[in-house]
C-alpha cells in the first residue's frame, strides 16, 4: 500500500459548543512512530479516539489505510478496526476473563482458527511482551506494568499494522515505564508497524519518537522531528519542554474581590 497510514484532514470536533479539535491536519507515514504531545485538555485523547474510530468528527476526513473512517459504513469501519491495535490508558483488560482469554478474544471473534492454533498464537503474543507464564492469571492479579504489557499483547493479537498507545507510561514507575518504551521500540523493529503514542512524558517521547506533534487548545502547533521541536522558539512548546508552570492564580480577580470585601465591610 502507498500513501500515509493515517491521514487527518481538517478535523473539527465540538463538545456542547466548545471546539475540542479545531481543523487538525496530520499525516502519519507507514512504519514511523509519531508521538502526540500536549497538556491535559489539549485534545490529544480526543484526536486519538477519532483516529481509532471511537467517535466521528463534525467535519473533516480521517483516512486509515486509505479508508475514510469518518464517513464509511459500519461494515467498512469494522474491517479497518482490525488493522488498528489499541492499548488503552487503563489497560481495559476484561476482568471477567483470564489474561489468556483476553488476548484470544479478538481471534475467537474474528477468525475461524482452531482452538489449538488460537492457544499457540496467544502464547506467542504473550511471549513477545514477556508474559508467557502469566496467561492463566486473572488481570487483577497482574501489576500495573504487566497489565499494560498484556494490553499490548491483546492489541497485537490480530497482527495490526497500526498500533496506538494512550498514555503508556501513566501511573508507572520510571523503570517499568522505560521497559514499556523498549517494548514499543522492539515491536516497531520486529514488525515494522506504524505506532501512534499519546503521552505527556517527555523522556519517553524522546526515546521512542521518529516525529512529534504538539497539540495546544485543539490545534496542532508543531509537527516535526525531535530536533525540530526541541529547537522551536514557539513559547508554548518552550513552556512544555522546560516545564514552566502557567500562572494559575488570577491575581487581578483576587485583588478585586478583596477590594470589594473591604469596601463592603467599611460601608
Amino acid at each position: 500500500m502507498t500513501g500515509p497510514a493515517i491521514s487527518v484532514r481538517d478535523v473539527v470536533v465540538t463538545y456542547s459548543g466548545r471546539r475540542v479539535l479545531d481543523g487538525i491536519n496530520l499525516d502519519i507515514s507507514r512504519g514511523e512512530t509519531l508521538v502526540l504531545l500536549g497538556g491535559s485538555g489539549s485534545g490529544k485523547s480526543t484526536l486519538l479516539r477519532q483516529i481509532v474510530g471511537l467517535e466521528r468528527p463534525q467535519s473533516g476526513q480521517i483516512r486509515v489505510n486509505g479508508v475514510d473512517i469518518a464517513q464509511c459504513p459500519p461494515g467498512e469501519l469494522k474491517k479497518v478496526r482490525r488493522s488498528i491495535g489499541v492499548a488503552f490508558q487503563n489497560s481495559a483488560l476484561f476482568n471477567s476473563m483470564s489474561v489468556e482469554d483476553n488476548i484470544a478474544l479478538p481471534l475467537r471473534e474474528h477468525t475461524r482458527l482452531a482452538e489449538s492454533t488460537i492457544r499457540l498464537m496467544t502464547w506467542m503474543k504473550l511471549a513477545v511482551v514477556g508474559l508467557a507464564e502469566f496467561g492463566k492469571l486473572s488481570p487483577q492479579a497482574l501489576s500495573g506494568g504487566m497489565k499494560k504489557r498484556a494490553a499490548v499483547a491483546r492489541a497485537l493479537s490480530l497482527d495490526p499494522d497500526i498500533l496506538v498507545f494512550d498514555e503508556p507510561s501513566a501511573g508507572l514507575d520510571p523503570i517499568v515505564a522505560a521497559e514499556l518504551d523498549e517494548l514499543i521500540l522492539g515491536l516497531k523493529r520486529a514488525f515494522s508497524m506504524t505506532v501512534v503514542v499519546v503521552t505527556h512524558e517527555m523522556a519517553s517521547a524522546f526515546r521512542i519518537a521518529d516525529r512529534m506533534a504538539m497539540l495546544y487548545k485543539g490545534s496542532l502547533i508543531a509537527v516535526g522531528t525531535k530536533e525540530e521541536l526541541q529547537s522551536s522558539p514557539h513559547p508554548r512548546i518552550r513552556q512544555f519542554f522546560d516545564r514552566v508552570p502557567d500562572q494559575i492564580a488570577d491575581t487581578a480577580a483576587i485583588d478585586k474581590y478583596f477590594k470589594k470585601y473591604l469596601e463592603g465591610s467599611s460601608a
Partner: protein
Amino acid sequence: MSPSVVERLGSAAMRHIEYIGGLAIQLQHACAALGRTLPLVGNRSRWRSAIQQMLTVGVDAFPMVGIMAVCAGFILAMQGASELRRLGAMQFVIDLVTIGFTRELGPLLTAIAVSGRSGSAFSAEIGSMVVTEEIDALRTMGIDPVEFVLAPKYLAALIVLPCLTILSTTCGILAGGAFMRLSTDMALGVYLRYVVRSIVLRDVMTGLVKSLAFATIIVHVGCLEGFRVRGGPDAVGRSATAAVVKSTFLVILADVGFTAVFYLTGGK
C-alpha cells in the same frame, strides 16, 4: 406561567422522550443481535455467556422469588379469608389466590425481585466496563458491545423470567393451599382440584406475556443506564440505583397497560 417553568417542563419532557428513544434504538439493536446469541445457529461463546446469565439471573433467584411468592400467597389468602369468611364464601379464597397469582402477582413479584437483583447488577457491570474503557476496547476490536454484553443477558432474561413466573405462581398457589389446610382443614388434594378448575389457559398465557415484557424492560433499562455512565465510580453507583427505580416504575406502568388491554379484550 413564567417562561422558566415552561422551559423546565419542556426540557424534562425532551429528556424523557430522548430516553424512551434510546431504549427503542437499543431494543432494535439487541433484537438484531439476538439471532447470533441463539444456540446452534449463533456464536457459541454468546450462548455460553447466556447460560451463565441464566444461572445468575434465574437459578440464583429461585429461593428469593419462591419465598416472596409463598409469603404473598399467604397474605392474599389471609386478607381474602377475613372478608369472605363473613359471607360464608371461603372457597372463593381459592379462586382469589389462583387467579391473582396466574394473572398478576406471579409475573409482577418475579419482575420486582429480578429488577432489584439483576437490573442493578447489569447496570453496575456495564457501567464499570464503560469507566475502565472495556466497552471502548470492545469497539476498537470490532466487537459490538450490544451483541457481546447485552444480547446474552436479554436472551437469558427472556427464557428465565417466564420460568421464574411459573415457579412463583406455583409457590403462591401452594401457600394458599397451606392456608386452607390450616384454617378450614381442606385437604391439599381437594384444594388442588379447585385450583385446576379455576385456572384458565388464557390467564396463564397473559401472565407469561407480561413476564416477557417485564424481562425486556428490566434488561434494557439496566443496560442503558450502564452504557450511559459517564465519569467515575460514583456514576456507576447512581446508574445502579436509577436502573432499579426506573425499571420497577416502568414494569408497573407496563403492567397497567397490559392488564387494561387484557381486560378490554377479555369479554368474559
